[in-house]
């Protein structure tokens, strides 16, 4: 009769998805922010297409990081506020399973959504369509890594007022390598050289955070639950 870890994982993912779709504005806000910030640049700078292409990877990645940060705050906070986090913590599944399920669900509704709208932004910034595959892959890896880093930060800042500012201060320095390699990969793809080196490094960072961040975030949650 007991419930296995996989079953618990899917149940939590299902719950998170349902909650997200019941509040579509929470889903749309980071996406709209991403779209607006990236379209402000060409409007504000009135650049030629060649110059726009030079700055577009940086603009795309900075906007992606900032809009992902907007939604990270809500990862554990609402559950902590209404007491459901305690129920999850006492469900007999260990906080690590809960952290993994919640973070994966969070990435599916925020990170993946951002990846899916990025071709629109890419077109607006003059990124050639040949570079889209690299852009999509690097963003997918980058946002997933950021979700894992964010889970640690969100776990640590649950109990704090204005915790979202502190969350940004914790997560942004850790996200520097993502920005460097992500924008680097996109830049190389635009200029037509191989982006594999940067993509491999992004993939390595993603694997690294996937394997270690759940334990760190679970430990952070355990401390804040006390």
């Amino acid at each position, binding site marked *: *009769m*007991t*419930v296995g870890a996989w079953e*618990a994982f899917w*149940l*939590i993912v*299902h*719950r998170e998805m*349902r*909650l997200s779709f*019941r*509040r579509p504005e929470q889903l749309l806000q980071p996406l709209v922010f991403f779209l607006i910030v990236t379209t402000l640049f060409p409007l504000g700078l009135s650049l030629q297409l060649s110059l726009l292409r030079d700055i577009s990877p940086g603009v795309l990645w900075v906007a992606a990081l900032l809009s992902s940060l907007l939604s990270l705050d809500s990862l554990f906070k609402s559950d902590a506020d*209404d*007491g*459901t986090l*305690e*129920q*999850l*913590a*006492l*469900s*007999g*599944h*260990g906080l690590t399973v809960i952290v993994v399920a919640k973070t994966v669900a969070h990435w599916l509704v925020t990170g993946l959504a951002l990846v899916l709208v990025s071709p629109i932004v890419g077109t607006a910034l003059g990124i050639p369509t040949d570079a889209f595959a690299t852009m999509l892959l690097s963003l997918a890896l980058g946002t997933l890594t950021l979700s894992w880093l964010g889970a640690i930060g969100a776990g640590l800042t649950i109990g704090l007022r204005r915790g979202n500012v502190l969350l940004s201060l914790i997560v942004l320095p850790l996200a520097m390598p993502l920005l460097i390699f992500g924008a680097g990969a996109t830049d190389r793809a635009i200029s037509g050289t191989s982006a594999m080196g940067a993509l491999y490094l992004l993939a390595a960072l993603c694997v690294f955070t996937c394997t270690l961040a759940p334990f760190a975030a679970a430990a952070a949650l355990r401390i804040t*639950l*006390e």
Partner: protein
Amino acid sequence: MNSTADGLMVDKVHVWRGDRHVLQGVSTQVRPGELLHVSGPNGTGKTTLLRVVSGLLRPEQGSVSWRGQSIVSGRTEYQAALAYAAHEPALKGDLTALENLRFSVGLKRRSSAVELRGALERTGVSACADLPARVLSAGQRRRVSLARVVAMQAPVWLLDEPYANLDSAGSELVSGLLQAHVAAGGLALVVAHRELTLACRVRRLELNS
């Protein structure tokens, strides 16, 4: 020791909150078929004790054991046997009462929608099953959280102020649920201000500042 090996045992628990010594060596035990009523004035650590017993809060000193095993080393088994209802009902406002039950009870045991509706009916809120929890009144939310405790079918109940926000029929309902649970061999730890008049074995623990 053997006489308590099948129950819950709290052994000289000390908890500090900042520089306040909230729990000063609290020891108690509850056996199956028994209810422990924790009472005392506000701020004497009733909820803190409940959180320690649930395992959410680790005491600075002392230990809690369940069936002779520490709840830290036997965490998974203990949590599987545990139904905890905190002071706040812990419901997601955007989910219906039934969905709330499905997702939280579902983590403990496999249960069908019929069973969960049955639990809601038992606590008198079957009409609210398909309403989002945010539109329910405080009393109805309390009843839904009690339905969750019932549906978990756990041998250990930890309830923090289960009588809060309930009308007189609701209070009788809680007493009825507690009696049935204890009569069926379960054990319960209940934090409540009011006197409990229950037809089962009640142990009392009075906390003082």
